[in-house]
């Protein structure tokens, strides 16, 4: 099955209020329901474009602003395989890996809306099939990889009874 890139009209500084507005985050407890409102203040029905395993592609500082974990939860529930951006804001970065949403950091100028994308996690390469271009992404730190492998930090903590890297 092919997976595709989706780009918003704005590229940089996409904040968590935009990902999921405060109007919905308090009201909706169900993840799949919440996913219907991603980027609702920016574009109508953005969630309908996403098929399971697709990618969201953005510019700098994706996920800045509020610490709301509903942001990565809603993105994950929308069916996205990963968010690909030039850079990510700090709290969002943590939250995403904690809930098992993969983030890939790389140059995104060579990915257009609806390009077909494949990810080679072993070699840290994003393959843009439509353009025939390979893009290196920054290796994911070991601790975050461990979270992703287990499906999120909670599962990781349950398995190891704490942080296995702990030396305190």
């Amino acid at each position: 099955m092919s997976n595709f890139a989706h780009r918003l009209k704005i590229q940089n500084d996409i904040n968590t209020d935009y990902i999921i507005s405060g109007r919905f985050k308090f009201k909706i407890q169900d993840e799949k329901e919440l996913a219907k409102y991603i980027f609702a203040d920016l574009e109508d029905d953005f969630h309908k474009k996403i098929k399971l395993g697709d990618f969201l592609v953005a510019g700098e500082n994706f996920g800045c602003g509020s610490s709301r974990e509903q942001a990565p939860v809603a993105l994950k529930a929308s069916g996205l395989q990963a968010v690909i951006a030039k850079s990510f804001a700090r709290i969002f970065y943590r939250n995403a890996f904690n809930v098992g949403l993969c983030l890939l950091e790389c140059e995104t100028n060579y990915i257009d809306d609806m390009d077909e994308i494949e990810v080679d996690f072993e070699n840290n390469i994003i393959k843009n099939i439509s353009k025939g271009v390979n893009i290196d992404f920054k290796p994911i730190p070991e601790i975050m990889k461990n979270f992703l492998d287990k499906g999120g930090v909670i599962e990781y903590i349950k398995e190891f009874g704490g942080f296995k890297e702990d030396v305190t």
Partner: protein
Amino acid sequence: MRQTIAEKILSEHSSSRAKAGDIVIAKVDFCFGQDGTSGMIIDSFRKMKDASIFSKEAFCMVIDHSSPSPNIGVSAIHDKIRAFAREHKVKVFDVGCGVCHQLVPESGYVVCGDLVLGADSHTCTYGAINVLSTGVGSTDLAIAASSGKSWFKVPETIKIVVEGSLPKGVYSKDVILNIIGDVGARGATYKSVEFHGSVIDALSVEERFTISNMAVEMGAKSGLMVADKKTMDWVRRHSNKVPKPVLPDADAKYSQIRNYDVSDLSPQVACPHTVDNVCDIEKVLGTRIDEVNIGTCTNGRLEDLEVTAKILKGKTVADGVKLIITPASVKIYLAALKAGYIEIFVRAGAAVNNPGCGPCVGTHQGVLADGENAFSTANRNFLGRMGNPNASIYLGSPAAAAATALEGKITDPREHKRRL
């Protein structure tokens, strides 16, 4: 040697020599959630089998974002928070107590040298009292609350030096807006910021909170200041915990050093729809304003209400302008009552809210209509932030907000110089 404040605090809490770029597991002195994040903290907590709260004195929840509850969904979350607190015998600051970022330091939970996590992005506020505090999500917070630990990427540090002397009518809010306009919304992403210089030294602790509060608006993990006599006095007045002030090494390694002179600074305004879209107030004078919001974790403290009262005293807000004032905590509310500020506000035509986040988060107490412009003392002006994506938000100091409320258009607070 060669360590910044952030590196020192993370070293101390991780039994390692932490340097920028390392990932460490560190002990957390205090952590908390608010009503927008605590529901998910509880969910994450319950997913970890047999989890218990690591230390009952080191965790609390604050009902401040939508408080009192505006709808049934939020009421259910508040109820869930209270039930969890009863079950685990932990503290809840319930409806009307105030904003978490005022209550946490004011209640003495955090002191110099502490490492603190909050499930709210403005947790960086306590950097003003030499606390390495930073915002995380609900799952991170649940793990910290149950294990007393979290993982940290040791940040690089940008040193910001603010020199000169602040002109009348120009405040710490203007200083930080000016810096954010310069550094940009992502200029300090994943970095720590240290604020130094004679202007910072001259500010009260309350004014310093305003600056550290907004460090996250340039992407920073924390906005740290050194502890001076004012800090130590403030901390000792509010806490029984022993403060352990941390200084950076004289030869600490900074990724950047930025110098500012604010002697000629005008009042600053962040224009729609990003916090780094900052200009001198002269450029936007006369812009129509429909709602003025004074309060929040940025500017809801007694000094903010005092300057507001000085400008509003004996006057009334312009026709058609909604002025909404929200003290940041009960303590501040009571002090403002005693000082006569609240009566001045009410007589001026303001709606005074119970302590809490007020209209800042866009869920209640002042949601904007289509096409409306707000002037707010808050820290964010993102599209839709105050509940309506078809409205615009300008950010500035309490003095600028009060002056603006009287005219119904953006007004220079220096017009009221004699009162300030």
